[in-house]
């Protein structure tokens, strides 16, 4: 059995940044396990621009962003294995993986989960109708087009206005397909504002809010879908049906943090994010197992994935060197008033060196609200925001000094207020 200090599950943006963070913090014996034949993960198929504005202060494409991290990992001589699938992780941090050379058993001092997320399939939203070819998760189709160089169809409807759906509406348009509509169940888009402008508005692609697909038609191939307006309970309104002919239906109906390995290891998962419940060190309920990136919660920008994951790598390194004790309890972090979730779930101020970032998302579109932070019942601070939307991840920072003001606090609450 191979022994390492830190094993990192996944060589996408989260895994690469975590590895660099760990290495910077002085850990040499690291290994990254990646199931694809290349590092960089999903960024390789994200050939559009808009990456790196926060980390590199310039606008890069996905592959360019990935290449910068890949280069740094190679320069740092951090070992990695490609085409290697992790099959199992145990509570005592044994990792079982497989590749064409055989089974690989690794005993690690710390594990960093960086498996990313996966797309919800058609079945998860139970759209009725036939089961013809031509229905794909948007990211799957993105791989067809951008990695392998083939398009799956010529007339496209996109269900869901998450960022991948928006990006693929534009991508399929570039490939000569007619994108007939992007259909969104909610009264607002789940994607970034800039993507709605640059991917739909600029190409005259209609965004049908408060609509859904109610029927899938076809035999061997998809021939069309029926869409309908939905009421305030998100139920289709009879009489509003509209048939659209298409040979391709792309689904951008949500991302699910990939946590089958975590579940099998007995790691506690959040019902809201689908990712592990973590403390201020991004450590899960199992000591020595850390999580970051889209495995932890679905991010909107890769820049934030990198920042979070680098921190996870540093934390794991400190844990391995015995400098980051597992907290005994800590302050519970909870949310209310339109804040859907916040990560982490608890904070031990003793493990906060100078500041800590708290990431959260809201559950609806809110205008002119304050984001308020309470220590127990006392409001620490609040910031006014013109608009908050579910599609954009929010960050707020708490400093060491702020924690020191409330040494006896038992809970922290993030709330939206009028």
């Amino acid at each position: 059995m191979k022994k390492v200090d830190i094993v990192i599950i996944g060589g996408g943006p989260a895994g690469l940044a975590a590895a660099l963070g760990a290495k910077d913090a002085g850990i040499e014996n690291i290994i990254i396990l990646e199931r694809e034949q290349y590092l960089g993960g999903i960024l390789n198929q994200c050939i559009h621009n808009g990456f790196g504005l926060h980390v590199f202060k310039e606008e890069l494409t996905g592959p360019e962003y990935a290449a910068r991290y890949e280069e740094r990992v190679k320069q740092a001589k951090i070992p990695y294995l490609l085409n290697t699938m992790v099959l199992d992780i145990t509570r005592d941090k044994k990792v079982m993986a497989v590749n064409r050379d055989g089974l690989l058993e690794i005993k690690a001092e710390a594990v960093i989960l960086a498996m990313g997320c996966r797309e919800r399939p058609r079945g998860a939203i139970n759209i009725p109708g036939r089961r013809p070819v031509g229905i794909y998760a948007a990211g799957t189709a993105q791989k067809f087009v951008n990695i392998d160089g083939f398009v799956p169809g010529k007339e496209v409807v996109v269900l869901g206005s998450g960022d991948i759906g928006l990006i693929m509406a534009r991508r399929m348009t570039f490939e000569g397909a007619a994108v007939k509509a992007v259909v969104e169940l909610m009264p607002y888009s789940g994607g970034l504002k800039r993507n709605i402008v640059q991917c739909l508005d600029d190409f005259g692609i209609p965004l049908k809010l408060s609509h859904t697909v109610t029927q899938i038609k076809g035999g061997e191939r998809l021939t069309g879908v029926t869409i309908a307006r939905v009421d305030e309970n998100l139920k289709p309104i009879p009489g509003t049906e509209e048939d659209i002919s298409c040979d391709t239906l792309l689904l951008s109906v949500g991302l699910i943090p990939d946590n089958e390995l975590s579940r099998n290891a007995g790691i506690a998962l959040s019902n809201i994010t689908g990712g592990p419940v973590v403390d201020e060190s991004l450590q899960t309920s199992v000591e020595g197992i850390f999580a970051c990136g889209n495995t932890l919660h679905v991010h909107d920008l890769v820049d934030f994935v990198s920042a979070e994951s680098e921190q996870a790598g540093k934390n794991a390194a400190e844990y391995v060197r015995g400098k980051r004790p597992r907290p005994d309890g800590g302050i519970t972090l909870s949310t209310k008033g339109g804040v859907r979730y916040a990560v982490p779930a608890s904070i031990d101020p003793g493990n906060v060196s100078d500041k800590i970032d708290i990431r959260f998302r809201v559950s609806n579109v809110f205008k002119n609200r304050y984001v308020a932070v309470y220590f127990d019942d006392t409001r620490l601070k609040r910031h006014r925001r013109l608009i908050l939307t579910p599609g954009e991840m929010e960050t707020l920072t708490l400093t060491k000094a702020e924690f020191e003001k409330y040494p006896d606090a038992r809970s922290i609450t993030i709330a939206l207020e009028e």
Partner: protein
Amino acid sequence: MYDVAIVGAGVIGASVARELSRYAIKAVVLEKDSDVAMGSSKANSGLVHAGYDPVPGTLKAKYNMLGRQMFDELASQLDFPFKQNGALVIIKNEADLPALERLMVRGVTNGLRNLRIVRNNELHDLEPNLHSDACAAMLAPSAGITSPYEMVIALCENAAQNGTEFMLDCRVEGVSKEEDHFCIQTTRGIVKARIVVNAAGVHSDEINNMLSAHKMTIVPRRGEYCLLDKSEGAMVKHTIFQLPTKMGKGVLVTPTADGNLLLGPTSHDIDDKDDVSTTKDGLDEVLTQSATLLKHLPTSKIITSFSGLRSWHEEDEFIIEEAPDVPGLVNLCGIDSPGLTAAPAIGLTAAEMVVKRLGAVKKDDFEPNRKGIRPFQSMTAEQRKAAIAENPDYGQIICRCESVSKAEIIAALRSPLGVNSLDAIKRRTRAGMGRCQGGFCWMRLLHIVADECGINLMEVTKSGGQSNVLVNPNKSGFAKHTGGPADEKS
């Protein structure tokens, strides 16, 4: 000239073919679709019924009991999944107890000896996730679950390995009776055979009506299902039924042989024999009724939904006989539930009819055993190491949800029936059958199929015919039409 042509490669045609392959005869199976088990046999509950439900004295009762007795040996010879998990028919109202007892009496009359009523605490100890209102149930320990399509594939592969020919994508368009044989017009040309076995499922009335003056009507009775993630597969151990009604056994909840949780089916007569749509009302009905059986229904764990068509005959009875006015036409029609359970016994009876008419003799080299594809997922660590050492393709995982290796995909492509669609691979290996429903593995599968079969990537189909996955190269033209993924790093 064939001795016998079997129309339809569902579980009935497959069972007949496998029984007939014991004999020194020339047999062919004609299947309209691109694979076997493409009709009712791929979209049903996968239940091997104990036999308490059919009316005593009927063919349904007789063949249910006979078929059930054959399952253990058949599954072990042919290496398809079969698990005796037992069934519970639950009631939520003491007033239904007499009806439950009548069902038990029916079972006893059919020959079942181990039925019993379980009450309150015992019931909830058996099934902790059962709806708390359930107050009693009849336990039928001999009920089981199988994978219906894997069973059909196993039967067909064993028949093929014993010399039976299979013509896929071969739809029967007409049949006429000549002096001593039948002349069958198909989409793949004329096929001549001395005997026709009509196992055409929902279309079996059409085959009969081409030849016989005794016209028949088969009604497609649609059943819709929802399939849940394997994470929910242990929700119940037994198959959980409601009290049956005249429209069938109602929506049930069962673990599947592969470890998922299955909800369904509905039961609605429709007109179109090809309409395997799901409907909003149907899926709602599945969920509403399932919710009455369980404490908690994790609807967020649904990974897919589907529907299948039962072949219902107006007399609500199996037809297993030579057409009275057409000697040599063996009709196996109206085989709805418990048809899957009955299939091995129906196959035996039909084969006897054919053999008697032909005066055929048994071969001495019949091979009763067939091995399925060895799944990486179910191997121990030691077996995995050995498998990869022998064939590195076992170390290359293609489907992450079900841990299916490249070796299994290639084995499916080289399997006896000569199939290469993604759905055919899925039914043989489970690649694409997990929680992401192919999102991860499809492109990998396309490359393996193209490489292994020596075809262009754009020629690979989801389910045969015109169901090609990729329709055009993209504008950049970097795509390689076969072989590995384009090297975007160069």
